[in-house]
């Protein structure tokens, strides 16, 4: 049995597999024992309550999913009062995904989330930045770094910066987040996509464009991990289209220290368990005694050894 534990910033996870934000909730505990996961990641919480986007909010597109959910939620105060106690029942470290409209709102919310039971904050900086004309923080190094730096000043919790594929230079954004004090990077959020409904000749999603995830997105997410892992020394958590242990090993080899599984859980609700078992089987078959030895093994030079 290989050693599956990994270290992400200050945290040690029992295994490198966790859910992707927005595709997970305590409800999945009706399908399997959530204590088997390396970590738990909440759907993004926002400072204020939000209603979300018009329906249809999801559409199938070839080997993938388009979504425009719009981060509905009851706001951070109600989340701490009502949802956090539910999460506290589980054993794995709890990572709270946070989305906010300004850098200072990110800071304030990070401060509010610095409470017992929260192990790390994942900054969903792919959301629109109200101070930059609605462009996502993660589209440019400057605004991304500003959001992370503001949070860094407001919390002692580890901060994971979740990057966006919708940028011309992900490595630059990755470096900026590292310099601003991020403890890890999550790579990546969905990429903007579109589908047209031929019956109506209108976009298939109520909101028009949406985020593309699933197997069709995988080669792009894997490339982003490859680029970011070579740009920073903090750990990278790979995310995008992972459905099997083999997919996960590709991400680890490309430089990831851990992985998140999103849309695959919609197809096979126990996909995360299969990913854990698949990674373990790969390590056994190929003689890796520690899963962490896989991290970055495919990189041109093995820069990842130094990364925690």
């Amino acid at each position, binding site marked *: 049995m290989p050693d599956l534990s990994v270290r992400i910033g200050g945290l040690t996870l029992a295994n490198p597999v966790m859910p992707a934000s927005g*595709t997970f909730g305590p409800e999945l505990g009706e399908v399997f024992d959530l204590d088997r996961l390396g970590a738990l990641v909440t759907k993004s919480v926002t400072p204020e309550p939000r209603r979300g986007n018009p329906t249809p909010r*999801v559409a199938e597109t070839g080997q993938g999913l388009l979504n425009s959910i719009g981060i*509905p939620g009851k706001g951070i105060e109600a989340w701490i009062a009502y949802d956090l106690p539910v999460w506290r029942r589980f054993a794995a470290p709890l990572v709270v995904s946070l989305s906010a409209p300004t850098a200072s709102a990110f800071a304030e919310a990070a401060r509010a989330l610095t409470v017992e039971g929260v192990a790390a904050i994942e900054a969903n900086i792919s959301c629109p930045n109200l101070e930059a004309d609605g462009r996502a923080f993660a589209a440019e190094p400057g605004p991304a770094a500003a959001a992370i730096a503001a949070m860094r000043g407001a919390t002692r919790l580890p901060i994971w910066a979740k990057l966006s594929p919708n940028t011309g230079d992900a490595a630059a954004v990755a470096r900026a987040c590292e310099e601003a004090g991020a403890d890890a990077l999550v790579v990546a959020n969905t990429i903007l996509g579109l589908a047209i409904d031929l019956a109506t000749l209108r976009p298939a999603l109520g909101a028009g464009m949406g985020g593309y995830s699933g197997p069709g997105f995988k080669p792009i997410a894997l490339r982003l991990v490859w680029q970011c892992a070579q740009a920073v020394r903090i750990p990278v958590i790979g995310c995008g289209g992972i459905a099997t242990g083999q997919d996960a090993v590709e991400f680890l080899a490309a430089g990831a220290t851990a992985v998140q599984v999103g849309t695959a*859980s*919609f197809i096979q*609700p126990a996909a995360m368990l299969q990913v854990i078992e698949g990674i373990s089987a790969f390590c056994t078959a190929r003689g890796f005694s520690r899963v962490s030895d896989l991290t970055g093994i495919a990189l041109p030079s093995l820069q990842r050894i130094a990364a925690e």
Partner: protein
Amino acid sequence: MDGSAGPFPVTTHLGRVIASVPVGARYHRLLAEAPALSAAVEPGQFCHLLCPGAYLRRPMSVWRAGAQEPLGFLFRVAGPGTAALAGLREGDTLDAMGPLGRGFTLDPGWGRILVLARGVGLATLSLLARRAVSLDIGVTAILSARDPADMMAEAFCGAVPMDLRLVHDSDGSSDPAAVGMMIEAEFIRARPDAVFTCGSDRLLRLLQEIAARHGVLGEAAIEQRMGCALGLCFACVRRIATPDGPRDLRVCREGPVFDLQSVEAW
């Protein structure tokens, strides 16, 4: 939340297809051996079905179920997902995730219920009606369809005795005004203890109005595009009136069955 026991009530069941048969020109029925799932599912609940070749699962009401009985689905062949399901053959595997969602309320003390179904809505209501009869509750079922070829009275009740009223677009009998008069007449003839509907927003509005006026309880099963079907993604919300005011509830989890009067115009 559902009828199944154990700490992990929801599972992907690999059932063996035992019948896959076209019904009329546009519909199809599928029966599979999936004993644990079939025994656990309640009327109004649904399964999320893997459709060979399509990426996402497709939500489908359970049309037939019960201990020692095959699990059945009745559906309109609408697009690639349902076409793939219709392409399954005897002996093939059907991957059904379930049981999912909140089903209908059925009080054994009731004397009679009225069921109003349009199109494939009758698939959703069929198990309820059959379960009611087995509890000695009388069932009046008004079934609305495009034309007699689309009418699936046989698929709805099978050999179970019910009062059926069939209405069609082709002869104008399914016109809401006409159906409204028919419901009023039924309320006078044999006042139901509860009413149930599925399959048409227009008939839903109609039934809301009549049931409210007569002070009769009711429930409606509604549909919405789904991602996870497990309550994780918030894709499937519909505006529902609650004691705390209108809220976007998840059809896959707080539904697909809601209090009749709570479903807001859409």
